[in-house]
Every structure is written in C-alpha cells, then in structure tokens.
C-alpha cells in the first residue's frame, strides 16, 4: 500500500514540476489579472491566461493529457490552430461585426493602413538579422500586423513550433497598444498637427456597402491569392451583415461562431505555451521584436500621413496613421484619446476606423504575400 501511495505521489504535479512550470503559471495568472481587473482585452487574455495554466500543469507523458500528445483532447482542439481553421472563422465573425462605411466615405485613409504594414516587413528584416530562419522571421514579422488571427494563421503555416510565443506576444502587445502607441505618436507629430480637424465624411449608401465586400474580395485576392482564406471569410462575413437578407447567418457569425472559436483559440494557444517551448532565449527575441514591430508600424503610419499632407490641400490629422495598426478598435481609440488630449472637441475615432479596418485587410495581404514567398 505504501508503494502504491508513493507511486501515486510520484505522478502528481508536485513531483513532476520544476521552476519553469511555476514561472509560466505565474505568467498565466498575470494575464488573467490583466484581463479581469484591468480590462486589457479580456476576451483574449482570460482564455489565453487560463490556457497557460492548463498547458503548464505538470503531467506524466504518455497518458494523452498534454496538448502535444497525439490522442489528447487538447490536441484535437489545438488542430484548429495548427491547421489554420480558427483564424478564418474569427475573420468571418469580424467581417460580420465591422462597418466599412467610414472607409468607404474616405478611401484615401486606406493608404495609412497600407503604410502601417511596413512594420511587418521591417520586423521580418530585423528577425533575419537576429539569425532567425526565413519562415520564423516571417512569423515574427507578422506580429507587426497587430492582428492575432493573422499572426496565428501564418505561424501555423510557416513555423508551428513558434505559435505559442508569437500568439502570446501578438495578443499581449495588442492589449498594450494604449501604452506603446501614444509616446511614438507624440514624438512624431507637432501640437499643430495633432490639432488638425477632419472634414465630415459623406453619407455612404446601402448599395455601396453591399457591393464593396464583393469588389474588395475579388480585387484583393486577385492581387494576393494567398490571402484568400482570411480575406474571403472577412468579406463574406461583411456581405452577410450588409445584405440584411442573411441577418440570421450574420448574427451567428458575430456571436456564437466568433465566441466559440475565440474560446478554443485562446485556450489552446495558451496551453501550447509550455515552459520548455516558451522559456527560451528565442522567445525573448520574439518579444523584443514584437514590441519593435508595433512601434515601427505606428511610426510608419504616422510618417506616411505626414508625407501625404505634403501633397494634400485639405490636411489629414497625422495621428490617424497610428490607427493603421490593425488592433481594431483599440488603436482607433488611442488616436481619439491622444487627439482629445490636445483638443477635447476633436473627434477622430470615426475617421480612425478607416485606416484601422484597412490595416486588417493590409495585414492579411501581407500574410498572404509572406506565405507565398516563404511557404
């Protein structure tokens, strides 16, 4: 009986744990705290945080419990991440939630979304310079797109062993957008520029909103066919929303489908961040590059807005360039916040949504391009 008891004890988490498990459990608890107490992206950080706890419970290998064991439940749920199924489903829900009218009213602001995607490619170069292989560098670079599903989709295709640290880095920095962006925005703009007020956008007709997802999908996927899974679902979701006749499907896409996939994605990505995979010098490099990616993307968007102003009669507020970082809608809210700090009556949120949304399209195109070059 003593032998049995000792055998049982040797299979408990207490016996199997080492210091790295406790570090990861602490990180998981911090994520949950940030999500619940600080309201930093709770829909992402709470599932990811709890997933980190799930993935770092020390278990005996071979019992089919761990996420990397073939016959485990978590492994089957994780297949939606590794096969690239979950991110397009999330884009379906995002498309069904998104109102493209601000972008349709002022299409020129889309170029700010394009400029911000330079953060992807500059970070890609930085990762190569640090010695990462091209597939890893591309997966790290896509963090600069500030789009969680896109980052997970591309990493699953190119460097699945890095999904954990890249997803955690991407979502962490998305949650920290209100901390990362404002200093860069203030550094690159003058007070006079921050005070620029935008013209009222024109009214967008229902027909435009219905035709846009069809034209947008055809145009973007003809230019970058590798972006088909993500952009196809994004524009399909938007068409369901705008056509009105399929409101039931749009409702399902933006509620039950989106919420279910978010839960499964967050939980399994968190669970994939096991200590032996996550606590490596490589992960430190990924986190540093991820922060750089966000900073470079913000700076690229703001600088491009200033360049555009050299040629425009009616100036645009260069703060809008920061909204090209496609952390929807947080970066648009940051633009509003920084603008209002200078002029409380300057309402930039609505205008910032245009580059914000085009950034989502741009990051999906960027991911498609990297996948087609390196995949």
């Amino acid at each position, binding site marked *: 009986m003593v032998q049995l008891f000792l055998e049982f004890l040797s299979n408990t988490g207490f016996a199997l744990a080492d210091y790295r498990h406790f570090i990861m459990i602490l990180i998981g608890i911090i994520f949950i705290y940030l999500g619940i107490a600080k309201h930093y992206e709770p829909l992402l950080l709470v599932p990811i945080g709890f997933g980190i706890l799930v993935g770092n419970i020390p278990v005996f290998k071979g019992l089919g419990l761990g996420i990397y064991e073939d016959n485990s439940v978590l492994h089957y749920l994780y297949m939606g991440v590794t096969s690239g199924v979950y991110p397009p489903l999330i884009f379906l829900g995002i498309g069904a939630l998104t109102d493209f009218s601000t*972008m*349709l009213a002022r*299409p*020129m602001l*889309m*170029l700010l*979304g*394009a*400029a911000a*995607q*330079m953060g*992807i*490619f*500059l970070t*890609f*170069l930085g990762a*190569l*310079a*640090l*010695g990462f*292989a*091209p597939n890893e*560098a591309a997966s790290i670079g896509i963090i600069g797109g500030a789009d969680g599903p896109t980052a997970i989709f591309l990493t699953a295709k190119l460097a699945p062993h890095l999904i954990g640290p890249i997803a955690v880095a991407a979502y962490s920095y998305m949650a920290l957008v209100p901390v990362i962006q404002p200093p860069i925005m203030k550094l690159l703009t003058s007070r006079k520029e921050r005070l620029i007020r935008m013209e009222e956008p*024109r009214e*967008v*007709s229902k*027909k*435009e909103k219905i*035709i*846009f997802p069809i*034209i*947008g999908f055809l*145009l*973007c996927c003809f*230019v*970058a066919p590798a972006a088909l899974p993500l952009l196809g679902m994004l524009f399909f979701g938007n068409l369901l929303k705008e056509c009105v006749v399929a409101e039931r499907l749009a409702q399902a896409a933006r509620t039950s489908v989106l919420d279910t996939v978010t839960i499964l994605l967050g939980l399994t990505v968190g669970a994939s961040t096991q200590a032996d995979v996550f606590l490596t010098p490589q992960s430190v490099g990924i986190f540093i590059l991820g922060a750089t990616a966000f900073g470079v993307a913000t700076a690229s968007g703001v600088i491009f807005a200033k360049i555009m102003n050299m040629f425009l009669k009616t100036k645009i507020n260069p703060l809008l360039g920061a909204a090209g970082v496609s952390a929807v809608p947080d970066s648009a809210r940051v633009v509003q916040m920084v603008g209002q700090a200078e002029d409380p009556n300057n309402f930039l949120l609505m205008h910032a949504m245009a580059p914000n949304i*085009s950034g989502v*399209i*741009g990051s999906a*195109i*960027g991911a498609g*391009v*990297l996948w087609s*070059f*390196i995949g």
Partner: protein
Amino acid sequence: MYGLENISAHNGWAISFVGVTIVFTGLTLLCLTIAQLHKILDIWENKDKYINNRNHKTLTSTPANAVPKPCMPVEELETIRQYKMIADRLEQPFSLPKLLDIAVKIGLERPHSTINTLLVKKIIISDGKGYFIWTS
C-alpha cells in the same frame, strides 16, 4: 549567420520590398475603386437624368444663328410650307401685313394665329427696319 549577411542570404531585401509594394498596390487599387464606386452607382441610378442632360447638351450645342427646327404636327408643317411659298413670292425682306393679306385672300385657315406661331418660333424674324425675313 546574423545581421545583413543573413538578410542578403535569404533574399530578405527583395521579399520586403516586393511585399510592401504588393500590399500598397492592393490597397491603392481598392482605394481607387471605392472612390469611383459611389459615382458609378449615382450614374446608374439616375441614368435617365444623365441621358436627358446629354441630349439637352447636344441640342444647345447648335450654332448661335441657327434656328431650331420646330417639332410640329404634319398639318402645321404643311401650313408653314404654304406661307413659305407666299414669302418667296414677296421676296425678302417682306412686309408682314402683305403676307397676312395674301394668306387671307388665298383662304388659308387662321392666318393671324399661324403668323403669330411663325414669329414665336422665330421662323419669321424682324430685320429691324420694319420688314421681316424668313429664316431657314
């Protein structure tokens, strides 16, 4: 390998440049298309108005001294043709009372009304010296 060597070895510069170009191209094309979309929809929804405007522009683009051809019923055109024959006999410029007199003598119907119509439609115009000329 690290640094610029690793970038060059893996074609990093080319991939980055082409990647940025493709992203910009895609979004620029989308931007240009969207910018025209509402104009195309406006033309499509109001195509009758645009066609009528185009026809009106064609009509008003005739020379300044040209008289627009009257759109009249066939009987009216026949009456005008008869008055034209009288005007030709009188030679230009002619006296309007004389034209009226001959029209009454021949027995043409409603001579006063017809001559008034010819004046309103500028088929007969004054030469500024008390006489009138028949325009083509």
